[in-house]
């Protein structure tokens, strides 16, 4: 390591605040993408579930019409 101690690495002379803030923002951006993708995936999965469960509930009926008494059980 170039720096002798962790404290020196943290301070980086007087520039640590600039370097570490950029590092933090970069990591936060990557984490934001992770969170947003997770949120979007959950939302879309709910959409798929809702649509297909509704589709399963809908049952087609045959196009035949007759009195119930004539229908063989």
């Amino acid at each position, binding site marked *: 390591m170039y*720096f002798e101690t962790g404290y020196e690495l943290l301070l980086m002379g007087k520039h640590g605040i600039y370097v570490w803030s950029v590092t933090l923002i970069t990591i936060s951006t990557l984490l934001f993408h992770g969170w947003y993708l997770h949120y979007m995936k959950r939302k879309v999965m709910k959409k798929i579930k809702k649509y297909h469960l509704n589709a399963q509930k809908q049952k087609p009926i045959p196009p035949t019409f007759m009195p119930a008494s004539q229908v063989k059980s």
Partner: protein
Amino acid sequence: MNFSFLHKLSSPRYFYYFSITYNPWIFYISLLGISISLTWGLAFTAPDYLQGNSYRIIFMHVPVASLALSTYMAMAIAGTMGYIWRIKLAFLASKSLAIIGFSWCTLALISGAIWGKPTWGTWWVWDARLTSMFILAFLYLGQIILRYTIQNTETAHRACALLGIVGLVNLPIIKYSVEWWNTLHQGASITLTSTSIAPEMLHPLLCAIASFYLITVSLFFYYMQCEILKTEYQTTWAYKVLASKNTMTPISH
């Protein structure tokens, strides 16, 4: 050479399964690359003779700034392909890239401003490079807003493709702004034939650039997976994806 796999990739279902197969590898390799290059650059390289330790911002600023331009180029190409050949997947690619590109462009502006304070003595100046990058961020933002404001999806995609093509004019302006005008922002340090960066600083930088490009590919695949499922939610295979994740009742219709 057989290019039939390229035709297959334009099918949303094939693309989805292709991406979920290979993307985890790309993602973990890119994360490893970013960790190595940032540790290498931030802790193991010597400070710059002029800028001291503040130059270490280069290991994040240069990759994201370069990606902001490359992503815009890819987004505009995808939009154009969708506009001309009406490929649904190309429009989805353009949409995914707009979100990723906007985040890189914003990050490049913020990291540049933070780097500017200790080196130039100011957070911001309206010089050609910074202003043209600022415009690029607005072009990305325009893409995102257009998609949310136009109700008709097809119209929104086509409008965004047109905006993307028009915005391409800005890319050479950004690239050559430091040569065409007298700017506070320094000229290019890496060209195709030469570099003015010492090898011990160049190697972690190149590693960071490669890793950030790789994670962009990975993010693109993840966004594409979401976008594909969003548009294909009525299909049986989309339900199978859900069923395989949640071990739900198998599909009956």
